[in-house]
């Protein structure tokens, strides 16, 4: 009975929907975006990437920018592999599915694991942040500078435990670089994200850690920050030396870049539109204010700059990582 009563309006609605979809398809290029856009975050809610992604996209619904909101969808797992694999293979290419990227994480994974993505699977849109890795030790640690740390490690190979946010994330890369540059051996402890890795150091469960500069900055009362893995000192921590200043040749390859990509195969008009709008949106005073208040370092880069950065990082990591594969 009920079926008959509803059938006419239902059929009409379906017809209308079908019509709209066809029309929508035709007009997509001009009117994009005409519905909310989803953005895949490959880490769990509450992590640094998730929370910054929510800040930098908060103005997407503004008329000045996209006039459509961006909805965050978390697909965590295996250090981001689950989300990026899904995005590269199943993400829609119509411009309504974006993803956040983390460099060097996704590039290192694409070298070390049989992933379904590499830098050529994604179309860069823009970069919003750069968070260098810093070497941290517990407050009561005997290490007061990089020299103490390296001297101890030389005498006790493998005895220093170093926590980080997971396998082949920036923190891991920094650990590998430090081992190589100083000629020491450390024991890297991969944790499920930066927050538990930080906790292990604060509680003295590990002897040291690499962690995000922003998180270390917020926790500096309970830590000692020995060095920053970047080319210059950071404005948040002007007293902390870079590794190079401390005499160890570790560059900025582990800096955690965060930004937005489209899947390969997205229409050039859509890429162009987003690549124009996003850097402006990231640079909005309101966004910058929230980022600053939350202690999240901003680095806005355009599509061209991101493409160049991807290529540079891939080249460097291809040099650093295969040696490791052989060691195992």
């Amino acid at each position, binding site marked *: 009975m009920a079926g008959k009563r509803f059938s006419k309006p239902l059929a009409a609605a379906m017809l209308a929907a079908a019509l709209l979809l066809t029309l929508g398809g035709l007009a997509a290029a001009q009117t994009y975006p005409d519905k909310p856009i989803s953005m895949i975050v490959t880490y769990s809610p*509450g992590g640094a990437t*998730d929370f910054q992604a929510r800040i930098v996209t908060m103005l997407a619904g503004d008329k000045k920018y996209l006039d459509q909101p961006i909805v965050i969808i*978390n697909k965590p*797992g295996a250090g981001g592999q689950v989300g990026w694999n899904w995005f590269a293979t199943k993400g829609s290419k119509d411009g309504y599915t974006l993803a956040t990227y983390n460099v060097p994480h996704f590039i290192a994974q694409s070298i070390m694991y049989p992933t379904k993505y590499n830098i050529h699977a994604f179309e860069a849109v823009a970069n919003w942040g750069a968070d260098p890795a810093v070497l941290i030790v517990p407050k009561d640690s005997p290490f007061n500078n990089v020299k103490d740390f390296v001297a101890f490690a030389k005498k006790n190979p493998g005895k220093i435990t170093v926590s980080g946010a997971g396998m082949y994330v920036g923190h891991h890369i920094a650990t590998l670089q430090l081992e190589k540059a100083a000629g020491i051996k450390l024991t890297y402890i991969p944790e499920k994200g930066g927050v538990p890795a930080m906790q292990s150091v604060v509680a003295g469960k590990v002897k040291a850690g690499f962690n995000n500069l922003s998180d270390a900055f917020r926790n500096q009362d309970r830590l000692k920050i020995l060095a920053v893995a970047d080319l210059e000192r950071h404005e948040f921590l002007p007293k902390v030396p870079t590794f190079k200043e401390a005499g160890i040749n570790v560059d900025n390859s582990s800096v955690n870049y965060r930004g937005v990509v489209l899947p390969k195969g997205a229409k050039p008009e859509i890429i162009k539109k987003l690549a124009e709008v996003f850097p402006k949106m990231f640079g909005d005073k309101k966004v910058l204010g929230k980022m600053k208040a*939350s202690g999240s370092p901003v680095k806005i880069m355009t599509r061209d700059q991101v493409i160049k950065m991807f290529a540079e990082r891939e080249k460097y990591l291809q040099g650093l990582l295969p040696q490791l594969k052989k060691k195992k």
Partner: protein
Amino acid sequence: MLEFLQYFPNALTPINLLVLVLGTIGGLFLGATPGLSPTMAVALLVPFTFHMEPATGLVLLGAVYTSTVAGGAISAILINIPGAPANIATLLDGHPMAKQGQAQKALYFCFISSLVGGLFGMVIMVFFTPPLAEIALEFGPSEMFWVALFGITVMAGLTSGSVLKGLLGGMFGLLISVIGYSPMLGVPRFVFLDVLTGGVAIVPALIGLFAVPQVFSLMETAFQQRDEVSFKPQKGILWRTFAENLKKVKALSIGSVVGTIIGVIPGAGGQVAGLIAYDQVRKFSRDPHSFGTGNPEGVVAAESANNAMVGPSLIPLLTLSVPGSPTAAVLLGGLLIHGLFPGPDLFRSHAEVTYTFIASLVLAQVAMCGFGLLMSRYSHTVMKVPDLEMAAAVTVLAVYGTFSVQNSLDDVVVMFGLGTLMYLGRKVGFSAAPVVLGIILGTIAEDNFLKGKLIAETDVGLFKYFFTGHLNLIIIALCAASVGYSTYSEVRQYQKAKAQTRAKEAGS
């Protein structure tokens, strides 16, 4: 404490109160929707707080956190599907009560116990934050490994039937938890199908294990004559239930204390607080066999525990920036956005906002109970829904809830697959709770064992790392006691049964 009273009135401004009430009502509905866990609900709301005053934004998040935890009990009791992992234990006795026509009473028990537990947790938080923060930091890989193991010892008690089947179900859950990429080495394990690459996430598993068998059994019985159970609104039972509930001192206090302790332990979260409290109350009960058949004490224990967890789970967050539960991790984002960095500074420079937040959490407990009780009056309408319509509605909710977690069809496939297996398992006497517990604890145990092993090898060695230290020894003793007691009561029950048969034989 003084500051707490000083800033308490701030939570009472009209706008904050309005947000509190709306957040609570919304949270109850969100919590009652399977799949929309407290973590999801809070994550969805964080962006809304960008445009609010810091205090108001936090009041909203706090109210939603509190009420979603309790709201999950509504679906657990009425349709036998826990709204979130925290509510699994609620269902064990809550749903049998509902089937006996006492849904409203079960819900009253649930909200009153939530209030008691929640307030207990908040009091502990207000008075003992600094020492508890120190304890929270003590939990490293070895301690967490033993905590997970303790949770595993609880599994046997979660089935009303055979202990062996409880343990086997738990084993199955542990095996499921290792599907997907290994957390340490990044290698895929047991990924026979493409849909399994991401592993089996907890929410799809939870919904599948509980909802799908429920749908099947609803369909089985849909054409049979229904039992004569009246599903009328029960009038005038509120105050009687209130008094009855408060008399269950043992269940309430065990639930509240267990919930508080689990809340402080970072990473364990409220997911297991309800189950562990339920098991303890059952063990200390004079009549453990009535659990699982509609004993109100089961509901009281589970709900007082999972709400007691809310306050303490914020202790490590507010003082050390270490979230005690997945939801607290999302709240951390909500704090950071307003430039509130957890740590001693939070209580000094931002005392006003911080204490307003804490005060609103206390008020949220009261609001949650009030609105929850009000909603319970309409629970009979859900129980009156005919089985076939109910089966359809549950299916829709299950698919919707599973899909919404990460917009993934794979999860829906996993949900139906596991659910079908569980339906068959239920036919031969397995129950779903130990399986879910296995899935939750397997990951915690594995991660921490591997982490501990790596650390131990650079340090004092495996044995010394896991078997020395006060905290390790205390938790190991608890594990031993739990196993010992289960074995003892099994043996006693066996002997009793044997004596009875002998007596019968002698009698005949």
